[in-house]
């Protein structure tokens, strides 16, 4: 097995992780049936081979530009900034990294595209994926259509209802959407079923896992393909004010949009990293998805990380209005960053997220995804604590078109 560090060693050592065992400290690893171990090794080898290969890099960059529409803008949210100004006119400056402007409407396409290019080079003709909000499912269906690959998307039946638009989009692009009835019919159950499919069809199939979760090498690969978000952000901050951002803010379900934004800045000690989990109906209600806030260390879907589990080690059902955050686990690197004190994690309720969705819609004319709205909602708590001129970059990870129907059932607008 090849264990080349991802990036050159650095004094603080965050970006050299995971180690050769796929570990971020005690988190990560490969807790999967033996049947999958060779496929994980094959994927790791292929990734190390191609990630710096000029043809691969050129193809990925060209597609990110011409097909996805990158670079996405770093947008100064003037009215949102004004909204949080104190009476004396001081307050933070709020910027949105516009991942919602990507083709397919979210950051998920960055990873789906990278992985499909890997799959093509590994000779896999069949692609499977799990999806919660449907954004990763849509992104995967999209790249499969683009490259003519068979595509099966596992999605919980509950999520298929609340994200019906995305189910239709996937089918429109030729993907088969496989309903998962087990458990609560949400992302956890869809992921389990996708893994079972992979165990069964591993020799012909590549599993495009959509978050920085799952067994090694997925948390690393997904992070690296999403790291384009942070790389562009650094460049754009330099252009706009000639410095670094002060605070990065992103929602965390599995945690891919947050890792994508954070990774570039992990070795910058002045940059605060803040991840926002879903508190559902409240962290005291048991109907939440606040894994890092309330979970204990456990193993789910191949990785050791914080996990919502009962006293017997059974995985609990999560709850969030946002299908993309409705997950009882979290990517292992987030668990590591939390324990290391490098990133902070807080939670936001369904109601707070709904309010933020309306707020951004009305102040900026940008309808964010429910997932993204959790990050935005935290501004309410964060902004009063910030010094004048503090530069906050929020990952505007997805657009809310997919949520409009579900949200309309919760909101009375006149």
């Amino acid at each position, binding site marked *: 097995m090849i264990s080349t560090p991802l990036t050159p060693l650095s004094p603080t050592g965050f970006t050299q992780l995971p180690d050769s065992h796929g570990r971020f400290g005690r988190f990560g690893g490969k*807790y999967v*049936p*033996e*049947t999958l*171990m060779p496929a994980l090794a094959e994927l790791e080898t292929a990734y190390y081979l191609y990630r710096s290969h000029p043809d691969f890099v050129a193809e990925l960059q060209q597609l990110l530009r011409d097909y996805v529409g990158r670079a996405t803008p770093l947008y100064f949210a003037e009215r949102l900034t004004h909204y949080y100004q104190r009476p004396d006119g001081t307050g933070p400056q709020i910027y949105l990294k516009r991942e919602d402007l990507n083709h397919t409407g979210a950051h998920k396409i960055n990873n789906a595209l990278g992985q499909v290019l890997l799959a093509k080079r590994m000779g896999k003709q069949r692609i499977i994926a799990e999806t919660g909000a449907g954004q990763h499912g849509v992104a995967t269906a999209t790249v499969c259509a683009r490259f003519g690959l068979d595509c099966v998307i596992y999605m919980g039946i509950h999520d298929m209802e609340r994200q019906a638009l995305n189910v239709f989009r996937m089918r429109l692009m030729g993907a088969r959407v496989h309903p998962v009835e087990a458990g609560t019919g949400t992302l956890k159950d869809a992921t389990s079923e996708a893994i079972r499919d992979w165990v069964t069809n591993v020799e012909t199939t590549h599993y495009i896992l959509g978050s920085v979760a799952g067994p090694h090498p997925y948390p690393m690969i997904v992070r690296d393909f999403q790291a384009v978000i942070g790389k562009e952000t650094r460049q754009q901050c330099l252009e706009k004010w000639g410095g670094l951002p002060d605070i990065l803010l992103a929602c965390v379900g599995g945690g891919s949009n947050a890792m994508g934004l954070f990774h570039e800045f992990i070795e910058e000690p002045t940059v605060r990293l803040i991840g926002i989990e879903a508190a559902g109906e409240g962290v005291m209600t048991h109907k939440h998805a606040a894994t890092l806030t309330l979970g204990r260390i456990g*193993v789910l*879907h191949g990785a050791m990380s914080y996990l919502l589990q009962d*006293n*017997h080690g059974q995985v609990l059902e999560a709850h969030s209005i946002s299908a993309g955050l409705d997950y009882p686990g979290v990517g292992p690197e987030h668990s590591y960053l939390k324990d290391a004190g490098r990133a902070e994690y807080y939670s936001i309720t369904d109601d707070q997220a709904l309010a933020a969705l309306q707020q951004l819609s009305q102040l900026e004319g940008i309808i964010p995804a429910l997932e993204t709205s959790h990050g935005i909602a935290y501004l309410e708590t964060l902004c009063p604590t910030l010094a004048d001129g503090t530069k906050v970059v929020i990952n505007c990870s997805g657009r809310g078109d997919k949520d409009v129907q579900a949200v309309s059932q919760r909101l009375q607008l006149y």
Partner: protein
Amino acid sequence: MTSISHCFTTLRQQGQCALIPFITAGDPDMETTAAALQALDANGADIIEVGVPYSDPLADGPVIQAAATRALQKGVQLDQVLAVIQSVRAQVKAPIVLFTYYNPILNRGIDTFVNQATMAGVQGLVVPDLPLEEMDVLLKPATAAGLEVVLLVAPTSSSHRIAAIARQSQGFIYLVSVTGVTGVRSQIQNRVKDLLSEIRHMTQKPIGVGFGISDPEQARQVKQWGADAVIVGSALVKRLATGSPSEGLQSTIDLCRQLKQALINSGEDLP
């Protein structure tokens, strides 16, 4: 209590292929589990595999998933599973292998878990989501507590991996007969024959074949290919959960006897 290794030594001396039935503890209920352990033992089981219900059984197909879900809905957890094993231990002569995913072990604490399992009368462990690379944390405490840890080999495993797994596995080597999850299959792939002979060249340890074997014909086939043990799960779990508990139990016993009959040497009959 006889260890798994010792059990195989005896069977080998007799030229026998072991029958290892699997049941999910607590399905359809704890009383039936207790009765089934004794009945399987009395009707041809050489070793019995007991599944601990888990919320996210990644290596299991629909039959065992459903059984685990039903058991969990009845409140069956590791404590109850160990208790039922302990309650019948004196009456059951077959070694008992506990099949459990890793998170319930991790949650309890590895040392506590292995000690409690030993106290309950468990002889071995199969942890399907703990591959060789992650096995070290369990191997030493389990061995110290007197448990044998059985590792799995899959059709996708390379020769290099098979050799490493065979070295570490205790009691026997669990050869997964399909690239896939547990569940009844219409036929056993010929590839199993080649895998058996490949593993045989690497180790003297017994080899048990499981995942997908459901009927006496398949059991006989796998025995002829040289397996030391045949593991049957989903087919038995399905029977045990069909009809009333007593009907399910009888139908489970019937299949157990048929499987054993298929495995014993020609000319012999069930005792």
